[in-house]
């Protein structure tokens, strides 16, 4: 093991909730989108689920809000090494949308895409079973545009680039298809607990 001369680092605060190689960003919430923040109003926002499903469907803002409310309270982890503890996102569980469209048994993966055209790929199992949300509130307030408002995907158990901002839809596929960062050298799954940052990790 290579030890860096004279490096001591931050005081060690034992924190079992911190994945390997991450640090606690505290109150900071860095913004890391690669594209121009879109000017997208709730009235313009739509969310579609299609691909390998029985009933492809598009929801408007009002229609999505008619689904049962669900919140995520917990931690988020960014591949650039910061983690943020005790965040609260309000919206709807992705399960509620998938229950309506009824995925085929052959569906194994999804591509999530944004109104900007950003894409990210996920195994279907990572966005079902209460592990993913469409969120429009942060800490009880409307989600800010630079953080993905009016609505974004939240998949908090994976690195946060998977939680596509300005979410426009999901397409269900029977194979994995790399999204934007995944085509730029990042890991196909991005599990922070296994430190899957880059392809090959």
């Amino acid at each position, binding site marked *: 093991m290579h030890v*860096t001369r*004279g490096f001591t*680092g931050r005081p060690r605060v034992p924190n079992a909730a911190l994945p390997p190689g991450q640090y606690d960003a505290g109150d900071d919430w860095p913004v890391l989108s690669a594209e121009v923040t879109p000017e997208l109003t709730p009235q313009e926002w739509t969310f579609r689920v299609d691909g390998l499903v029985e009933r492809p469907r598009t929801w408007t803002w009002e229609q999505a809000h008619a689904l049962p409310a669900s919140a995520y309270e917990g931690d988020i982890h960014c591949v650039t090494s910061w983690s943020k503890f005790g965040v609260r996102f309000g919206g709807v569980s992705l399960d509620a949308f998938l229950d309506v469209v009824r995925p085929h048994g052959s569906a194994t993966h999804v*591509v999530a895409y944004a109104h900007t055209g950003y894409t990210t790929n996920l195994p279907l199992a990572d966005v079902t079973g209460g592990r993913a949300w469409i969120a429009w509130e942060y800490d009880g307030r409307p989600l800010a545009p630079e953080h993905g408002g009016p609505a974004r995907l939240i998949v908090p158990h994976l690195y946060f680039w998977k939680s596509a901002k300005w979410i426009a839809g999901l397409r269900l596929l029977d194979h994995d*298809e790399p999204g*934007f960062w995944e085509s730029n050298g990042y890991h196909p799954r991005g599990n922070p607990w296994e430190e899957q940052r880059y392809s090959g990790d």
Partner: protein
Amino acid sequence: MTETLGTTSSFTPPTRFAVPGRISVDDRAASVWQTATITGIRRETPRVATFRLSVPAWPGHLPGQHLMVRLRAQDGYVAQRHYSIASAPDDTGHIELTLDHVDGGEVSGWFHTVAEPGDTVEVRGPVSGFFAWPGDRPALLLGAGSGVVPLMSMVRHHRARRSDVPLRLLVSARSPEELIYASEYGSETTPVFTRSAPAGVPVGRMSAAHVAPLLAERPPGGWEAYVCGSNGFAEHASRLLVAAGQPVDRIRIERFG
């Protein structure tokens, strides 16, 4: 009704992607840690210095790419950060990083207060091809503070190749003393000072008056715009570009965080 989309054809989002990747990345290079030796330290401003690293097995990079640096304490504690590469691609077996001394920053603090030539750190990369500029298309670069670092790699690359591809840099700094690489800029660069400026130079934020004349140059094929800095700067600068007519799908943004 059943859709059978996506079983064979590649998925294309309904919106043209804002920023398609520029280059493919060598996954092996990105996943292998190697030892880098500090061979020189050069002060740029009171809070910023450049660290020259010897990386014998460096696989090469393109301007705009970054790498990951890892420091390890005696007890095994590890800290790692992404940093943009400041140097142009060359065959010297060296790369340069230009680092802000961040308040309370455990990694930048080590570089600024402990590191000496001869010290070693671990690096891996280069990573991420999206902000890379291969030198092929006209480049309009907007940076603030240490956000100028990956842009300077592009300027240096442009010079080293004696390229005639149009390239312009707008760089914002609080004052002349805080302008990184101040002595290196040429006619391609317009500095913007937000707090204090040399005599005769206006003080103020980057504005439409800076951006409009550059967009008016309309190089063949149009500009590829690269924006780097804090999120506040990135939001401001990207809005200026859009307002001046730059297509959103030809603006790439690298935000600190």
